[in-house]
């Protein structure tokens, strides 16, 4: 694999490991990036004095000044378009779009310029920028506050799309994203903002690499963002029922880590893809399709997916019906031709 951003400054402080929420890890990553590179600036709606509606930019303005973290007028195309110009002129903008439905006004700028300017200029101009978007549901938010729009970005050539599922990855992937010469859509699973975990600031992440989140031999669950803890929970329940379930945290939605995923699924012969977004023409369907194609001879059963339904995101009182849950994942696992493998039945 040729994508590597291992060049992140390694922090030598002895206190490099501590326990914190994903929100705090993201905040720390921003602060450390601002300190490390004078061209890194953070901006967007309410990221200044307020510290962002999720407090991811908490205290950055107070600590580093308006010059490093500031509020903009309320216009997402403006925010992203301005970032494009700044990146053209040597800066490394990190912008926050408040909720992922509110990234949509910036869609033209993202698709027509952020994703394409590097290619358009034959690399003459690169777009080292990060667009941070809190995504996903499960927080009881009203309409437009819980969408999962990763498919729009992952489908767009030129964009790198990543999503962390742990505080450690939140820190390390965000540092890697900011250090990347290419534009990164950084999707933050808002449901996990307050989940705590250890963060070692000296650990660097490589964009483009999936992570084996749990070992297992019978079936592989492929998930990202908020679906990773769900997959781990399902794996735990399945284990109690005697099944050994492997969990892969995709992390990098684009580029995709075919190597890791293919090896994993070939070993177990069964796979379920899990994601909150509507399944149709989605990242989940992509993963399903490529696993099918690359592991065809190794599959004991069709690859399944457990995704959000193909409906507008559910209102708070109904979202538990809409989102993938442990039972739905277990049902999908159960459907994977366990006793009488269909391949034996159907072949010859």
């Amino acid at each position, binding site marked *: 694999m040729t994508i590597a951003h291992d060049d992140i400054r390694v922090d030598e402080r002895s206190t490099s490991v501590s326990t914190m929420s994903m929100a705090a890890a993201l905040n720390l990553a921003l602060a450390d990036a601002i300190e490390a590179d004078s061209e890194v600036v953070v901006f967007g*709606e*309410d990221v*200044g*004095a*307020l*510290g962002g*509606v999720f407090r991811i930019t908490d205290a950055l303005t107070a600590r580093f000044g308006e010059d490093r973290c500031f*509020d*903009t*007028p*309320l*216009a*997402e*195309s*403006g925010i992203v378009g301005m970032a494009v110009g700044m990146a053209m002129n040597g800066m490394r903008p990190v912008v926050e779009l408040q909720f992922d*439905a*509110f990234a*949509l*006004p910036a869609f033209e700028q993202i698709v027509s310029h952020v994703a394409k300017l590097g290619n358009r200029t034959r690399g003459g101009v690169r777009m080292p920028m990060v667009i941070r978007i809190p995504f996903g549901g499960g927080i*009881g*938010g*009203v*309409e*437009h*506050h819980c969408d999962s729009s990763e498919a729009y970005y992952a489908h767009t050539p030129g964009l790198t799309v990543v999503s962390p599922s742990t505080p450690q990855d939140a820190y390390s992937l965000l540092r890697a994203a900011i250090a990347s010469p290419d534009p990164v859509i950084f999707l933050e699973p808002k449901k996990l903002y307050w989940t705590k975990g250890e963060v070692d600031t000296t650990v660097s992440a490589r964009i483009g690499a999936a992570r084996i989140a749990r070992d297992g031999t019978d079936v592989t669950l492929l998930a990202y963002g908020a679906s990773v803890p769900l997959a781990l929970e399902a794996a735990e329940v399945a284990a109690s029922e005697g099944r050994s379930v492997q969990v892969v945290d995709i992390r990098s939605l684009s580029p995709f880590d075919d190597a890791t995923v293919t090896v994993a699924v070939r070993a177990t012969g069964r796979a379920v893809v899990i994601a909150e977004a509507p399944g*149709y023409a989605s990242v989940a369907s992509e993963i399903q399709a490529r696993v099918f194609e690359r592991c065809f001879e190794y599959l004991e059963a069709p690859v399944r997916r457990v995704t959000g*339904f*193909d*409906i*507008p995101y*559910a*209102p*708070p*009182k*109904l979202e538990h*019906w*809409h989102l993938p849950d442990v*039972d*739905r994942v*277990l*049902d999908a696992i159960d459907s994977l031709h366990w006793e009488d493998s269909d391949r034996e039945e159907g072949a010859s």
Partner: protein
Amino acid sequence: MDDERFRSPEDRLLPRREPVQLIDASGVGTTDEQFPRPDAETLLTAYRGLVEGRRINDQASALVRQGRLAVYPSSHGQEACQVGAALALAEGDWLFPTYRDSVAVIARGVPAAEALVLLKGDWHSGYDVRAHHVAPQATPLATQLLHAVGFAYAAKRRGEDTVVLALCGDGATSEGDFHEALNFAAVFHVPVVFFVQNNGFAISVPLSRQTAAPSLAHKAIGYGIPGQRVDGNDIAAVLAVLGEAVERARSGGGPSLVEAHTYRMQAHTNADDDTRYRERAEVQSWIERDPLTRLRAHLRDTGALTPELEEEYAAAAEETATAMREALNEDADIDPEDLFRFVTEARSPQLEEQWQLLRREIEHTADATAGGAR
């Protein structure tokens, strides 16, 4: 430099130097040759609306604390704009509100319990838009302004005299859709009044970060439509200015932009912490300009508002609040199949398959609950 060189008939588009005000903060009426003060009866109706609006705001905020509403963006302090917007319209007219405008929606006749369905979390909108002539409350900022334009276009095309009043905040004026809406409205000369409640903040971001223009009303000039500033805490002025704008629209005079100067007295929503970005003293200073106390003083001074009437209004407001509480304390029975019912008129095979999956799960869960574990 010769100032006259910069003047032309088109310059009449400029808004006034100061917001229109007809009752000052202490309740004293002022005179204005262009905008006569509404009569006492109208002002009493307005006052009644303000009392109810304030009660709705405070009741809703309480319901959030009690966990009965998911979130509430209060218009406490902006009630003159809310009630003014509703009262400025005739029955056949349409209102295009935002998440902040529940009081306007209710003042327009939508039952509070229905207006609050969105914020309660039962569904994305809870009232019959056609019955009340009120569009669903919009969340994506400024997007509804374009819907208002299209709606008005259709009405005008049919020769109806419908006027559409579209609401948005100061922050929303920065969005591209604000620009496109005002421009389309002007080019197609449709009967829309754009009413901006400039409450000083877009969540935490102050107006100074939103615009460098002398006022938001000045934006009208770039579209060739009239713009006006009004004291948004003076409902007399709001009614007069909106009234003129609505009349102009109705009589074929095209769209216009009204900017109300008001203030968001509470945090953006209950989820917000406004101590992070504004001084208490600033908030305090607006108490003096409260839309209720001002109109109350005026109506009591002029003798129109009797203690009996005050009591009556308070009782009516209390009734509304009680109805709200009762309605919201009930847990609605929401059918999960609704998730699939309205996505499209006819259900696709895919959605039917997905519903069957969910239906089986629900049945299974019911069985499991009845009979034991998974």
